[in-house]
């Protein structure tokens, strides 16, 4: 049985085709998000079908997740990102007990029980300070890409303290820090620490190891380290973190699968 999962996130749409019999990912891909998200998702889906040499009729079920999930009308059903990330991460790393997901417009902390069942969760979607949007703002302000930001953060000797709770005001603060001659790497590392601090406040006291970091922001080098420092525990980046939501959606479209090899 082949199932599809589509994660319509705020910054990008991710899709996964999953063979439930072989417990294997057949294809995965992503595209930038835009206003026409259903068309974009459909095009991505078709592209993955072509890549995997499949016809639409061979797909047993399609589940959409992400903030734009309700716009994906060709999906059979929708499931929230909480459930999908939990299933996706559990499939890849069955020992995970806490999942931190930082996306473009929100962040989540998911606590898992045995079997990958969600025990509890917390979400932040009212403030950009704990999300990838903060990094995007900094990247745009400094006119550089994410990779360059991460490289700069690695060079930091003494991360700057970003005290503002609001991204808009933090931007002004960053400009002030740079004007005061604060080294750029320290400012960027300060931004990473600021995001990590917001997420740790969200996590409260329910962080049980092992902690896995997923979502697009997990790809940025230095973010996991920043989280480790504020949470005072090891934070591992989930395999291909940008696809765990789509994988969880695909898993939700098929029969329950055992944890383990997914082909990622």
């Amino acid at each position, binding site marked *: 049985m082949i199932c599809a999962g589509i994660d319509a996130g705020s910054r990008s749409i991710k899709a996964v085709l999953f063979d439930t019999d072989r417990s294997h990912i057949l294809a995965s891909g992503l595209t930038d998000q835009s206003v026409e998200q259903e068309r974009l998702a459909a095009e991505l889906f078709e592209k993955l079908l072509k890549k995997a040499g499949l016809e639409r009729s061979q797909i047993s079920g399609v589940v959409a997740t992400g*903030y734009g999930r*309700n716009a994906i009308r060709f999906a059979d059903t929708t*499931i*929230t*990102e*909480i*459930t999908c990330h939990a299933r996706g991460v559990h499939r890849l790393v069955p020992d995970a007990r806490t999942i931190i997901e930082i996306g473009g417009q*929100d962040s989540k902390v998911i606590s898992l*029980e045995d*079997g990958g*069942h*969600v*025990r*509890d*969760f*917390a*979400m932040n*979607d*009212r403030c950009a300070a704990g999300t990838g949007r903060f990094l995007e703002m900094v990247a745009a302000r400094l006119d550089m890409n994410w990779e360059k930001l991460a490289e700069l953060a690695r060079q930091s000797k003494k991360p700057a303290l970003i005290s503002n709770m609001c991204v808009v005001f933090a931007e002004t603060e960053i400009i002030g820090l740079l004007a005061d001659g604060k080294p750029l790497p320290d400012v960027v590392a300060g931004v990473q620490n600021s995001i990590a601090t917001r997420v740790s406040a969200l996590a*409260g*006291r*329910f962080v049980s190891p092992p902690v896995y970091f997923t979502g697009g922001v997990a790809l940025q080098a230095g973010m996991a380290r920043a989280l480790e420092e504020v949470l005072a525990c090891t934070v591992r980046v989930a395999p291909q973190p940008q696809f765990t939501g789509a994988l969880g959606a695909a898993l939700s479209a098929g029969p329950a699968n055992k944890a383990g090899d997914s082909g990622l």
Partner: protein
Amino acid sequence: MNTSPRKLNLDEWDDRYEQLRRDGLREAGYGGPLRRHVVREKDFRLQQLQFDNSPAALRLWNFLLTENERLHQARANGHKIVGTMKDLGTVPVMAYALPGVRAFYPDGAWWTPCLMECSDKLLQQAEAMGIDASFCPVRAMLPAFENGEHFPQPDLLVCSTGAVCDDFSAIAQRLEHLGHPIFWWEIPRRRQPAPGEMACALPGNLAAPKIQVDCVRTELQRIGKALGHLAGKTLEDDCLAAGIRAANQARRLLDSLRRTVYFAPAAPLPALEMLVAEMLAIHFCSDREETIVVLDGLLAEVQLRVRRNQFIVSAEAVRIFWVNPVADLRAMNLLEELGGRICGSDYMFTHALDLIPENLPPLEALARTALADPMVGPTSDRAMRIVRECQAGHAEAVVVSRIPGASHCAREGEIIREIVRQTIGIPAIELEIPPVCDALLPSLGSRLQALVETARDRRTK
């Protein structure tokens, strides 16, 4: 006239109302089609809500939405009007013990921006009066007092201060500075009696030092004198005892209603109507006798539905315990649309749901009840009651809804969630629901849907 229970939107209620009328519906003086509240009072939010289809629910809504009209009528009939602010259920019992006195709850204006979808501009006007969006939406009462377009100016305004919401105190102080004199009374922060200290049992399995109960009783005595002065009649103990018995009649009905609805295998009445019904406990919606009739009607309806095995939300729905009232009533519909149902609630006035002791001197009984207010004690007391009620209602998850700007306790939600998680291990989330939550519906919906999914997944565990 009997129809299977279902939820109707306002358009469907128009047809339903005509059908009920043709079938001989008997209504109270304040009755009529729900639509008229949109046309006459600009309660536009009603167009976005789903309502229960029973005549009993229609009566409840009409009762709620005609409160200002009925208050003006009472004033015209020579009744004295008392605005009772913040205490959530104690002073109204005293006011209604006196003939010709009606109490209302100006704090209730916090729902006006929601019902009128902010078309009334009350919140903006409050901001112009120096109380901005960093305060609770109760601030809507400030311009409502000033413009006289809602409730009549009360003959007496009574407000508790001390261990109450600091937001509310600031708003009420501003009200007084605007020229509305307030009779203040103080309530201390409830604490556990120290070892060896004389203690009193309070409703809700609580206790407080006797010295605190004495303090509140003395304050209530002052209020009693002020009320008696207004009514031209001393508030004697026998009057007060009769008032307590009548209040308890409403509380017993509400208790039966809550038990019947929350403990039923499936919900026989929607969450929205239950929220409105529970609110009657604190202020009687300006008419104590009619409150009893309205609750009696609702109880009869749900008992009939349970006997007939007719429910409005399926037995499959996830059982949710809801903490705090919502600023936007739409949120209660949303929960059910996403597969949840309410199996218990703590709308911040659980002390007004407990029976007032009838075996104590009346003022002593009221003082003990007032001190059992969840807002004047530690959050852990409140959380433990929530835990007990979650267990009684077999709750599968908890929603703590926050009121934007309200600051009864900055960490209240976190404390409640933590205690729930540690003692009964069910998921608990916190949501902020503004007076009109349309822009946040996708995000609110995601959280509620995730909670429902999580609870469902735990069933299969």
